[in-house]
C-alpha cells in the first residue's frame, strides 16, 4: 500500500478507537480516491475536529473521557535494544523518511519547508472539499508535492521574474554568476584576516584536529549593486565575536554583484569561517 494511503488508514483507525472508547458515533465512509494521497485530506481533518468537539462536549458535561495511550504500541519507532540491528531488519524506507528535505519556498505566507511526501498545513485551511466520491486529486489548501501537472520550468521562469521585480534574494544555486569579492576569494580571506581583530579567536591556519574550533557559515546578502545589505551569523555562542564579525563583514568593499539572465540580482552567499572555541563556552 502506498505510504499516503497507509497513513490515512492508520489515522482513521486511531480516530475510530477514540470514538469507540468514548461512545461517540463515528460516521465515516470508505475513501473512494483511487490514487495515493498525502495521508490526510479535508474529510479526515473534519473527522478529527468532530471528535475533538464531541470530546469537549463530554468533558463539559462532566463525563470522563479516554484518549491517553488508547493507540499506544500501534506505532513504535524502530530501534534495537543494546544490540546491533540485524541487516535483515534494515528498512531502507526508514532512512528515506527519517529526514525532512527542506527546500526554499517562495510563498511568503508561510511554510518555507516543502516536505517530500508529507503534508504541510496551511493557515487558511478549510474543509470545504471532500475527497469522497471524487476520482481526482482533492482540491485542498495543502501544499502538494509531486503534482503531475506541475510545470517546473515555467514556474522557475515566473519565480525569477517575480524575484527580480521585488528585489528579493536569490540563492546561489539559482544564479548564473556568483557575486565576487574584488580580487577574488583569496583576496576576500586576506581582507577578513585584516579586518576581524577579535583577539586570539579567529584562527585561519591551524589544523582542524589540533585545536578546539567552531565552524560558522556567515551569510552575506549582497544587493544588486554589489553592496553588503546584511550579514547573518547563526552560531551565537559568543555574542562579542558575532558582533565583531558582523561589523567587519558589513564594512566590506563593494562586490561584483550576482547575475541572473543578464541582470544584476540580489543574492545570498555563505562564507565558511572557523575560529577557536571561546574560553567561556
Amino acid at each position, binding site marked *: 500500500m502506498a505510504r499516503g494511503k497507509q497513513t490515512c488508514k492508520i489515522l482513521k483507525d486511531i480516530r475510530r478507537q477514540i470514538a469507540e472508547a468514548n461512545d461517540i458515533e463515528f460516521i465515516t465512509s470508505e475513501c473512494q480516491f483511487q490514487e495515493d494521497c498525502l495521508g490526510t485530506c479535508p474529510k479526515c481533518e473534519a473527522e478529527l475536529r468532530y471528535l475533538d468537539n464531541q470530546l469537549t462536549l463530554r468533558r463539559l458535561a462532566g463525563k470522563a473521557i479516554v484518549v491517553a495511550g488508547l493507540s499506544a504500541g500501534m506505532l513504535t519507532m524502530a530501534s534495537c535494544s543494546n544490540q546491533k540491528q540485524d541487516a535483515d531488519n534494515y528498512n531502507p524506507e526508514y532512512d528515506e523518511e527519517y529526514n525532512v528535505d527542506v527546500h526554499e519556498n517562495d510563498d511568503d505566507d508561510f511554510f518555507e519547508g516543502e516536505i517530500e511526501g508529507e503534508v504541510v498545513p496551511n493557515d487558511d485551511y478549510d474543509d470545504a472539499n471532500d475527497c469522497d466520491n471524487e476520482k481526482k486529486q482533492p482540491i485542498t489548501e495543502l501544499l502538494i508535492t509531486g503534482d503531475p501537472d506541475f510545470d517546473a520550468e515555467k514556474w522557475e521562469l515566473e519565480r525569477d521574474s517575480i524575484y527580480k521585480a521585488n528585489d528579493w534574494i536569490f540563492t546561489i544555486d539559482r544564479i548564473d554568476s556568483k557575486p565576487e569579492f574584488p580580487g577574488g576569494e583569496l583576496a576576500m580571506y586576506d581582507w577578513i584576516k585584516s579586518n576581524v581583530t577579535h583577539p586570539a579567536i579567529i584562527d585561519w591556519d591551524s589544523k582542524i584536529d589540533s585545536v578546539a*574550533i567552531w565552524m560558522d557559515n556567515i551569510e552575506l546578502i549582497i544587493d544588486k549593486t554589489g553592496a553588503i545589505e546584511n550579514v547573518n551569523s547563526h552560531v551565537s555562542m559568543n555574542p562579542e565575536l558575532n558582533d565583531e564579525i558582523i561589523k567587519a563583514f558589513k564594512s566590506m568593499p563593494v562586490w561584483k554583484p550576482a547575475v541572473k539572465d543578464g541582470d544584476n540580482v540580489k543574492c545570498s552567499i555563505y562564507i565558511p569561517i572557523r575560529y577557536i572555541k571561546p574560553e567561556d563556552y
Partner: protein
Amino acid sequence: MNNISAKIAAISRHRLAIDGDGVTTLVVFAGCPLCCRYCLNPLTLSPNPKFKNLTPQQLYEKVSIDSLYFVATGGGVTFGGGEPCLHPDFIDEFRKLCGPQWQIRVETSLNIPSDNLAKLLDNVDQFIIDIKDTDSDIYSDYTHTDNKLVMSNLRLLADEKFCDKCIIRLPLIPGYNTDANRQSSHEKLNILGFKNYDYFNYKIKENPLWHEANKLVKS
C-alpha cells in the same frame, strides 16, 4: 520570558513512528553548529531570511491540531533541525503550553553547550542522538567540528540517568567510517549505560557548504 522566538524551517505532520513512537509532528529549526558533508538539509545551516520566526505560542497553535493523535498514540512533537538544542528556552516555553501529555523529543547531535542540555532535561522525554562516530578524527573530518562536547554531553546524560530516554543513532557514513567503527562506538556507549541503538546508513547528498569549508581546512 516573553520574547522567545525561533526560525522554523519546516513543519511535517503525521510522521508515523519515524521520529519516536506514535504520531509525531516534526518541527525543523534553522541553524546548526555542524557542517556535515552529507547534511540533508543544508538550508537549515543558516537563518534563511525566508524562514518564519515563530514564538512557542504560535507554534503550539499550529501543531495542536493533531493533539488527539499525539495523546492517543504516545506521540507528540519532535524538534529537529538544524540543531534543536540551541533553543532550550523555546522548548521550555513550548512545554509549558503543551503540558505533560505530549511527548517532546529532540533529534540532536549533542554538539551543544552543556548548559543548554541541562536546561532541556526537565522538558524532553526522549533524545534521539546522531553521534556520527565517537572517533574524533572521523567526526572532525565529516563535520569540520570536534566532538568533545558530544562526548561530555553523553556523559552528562548518563550521569543524570537519562540513558533509557535516549536512542543513539549510529550511522554508517560512506567514506568515513566502517561497521567496525560503529561497533566500537556502540561498545564505548554501552559502558556509559546507553541501551537503545539505531543502526542506519546515511544517504549521500553532498552539502556544498562542507566543500567550501573543506577548501579552507585543506589550505
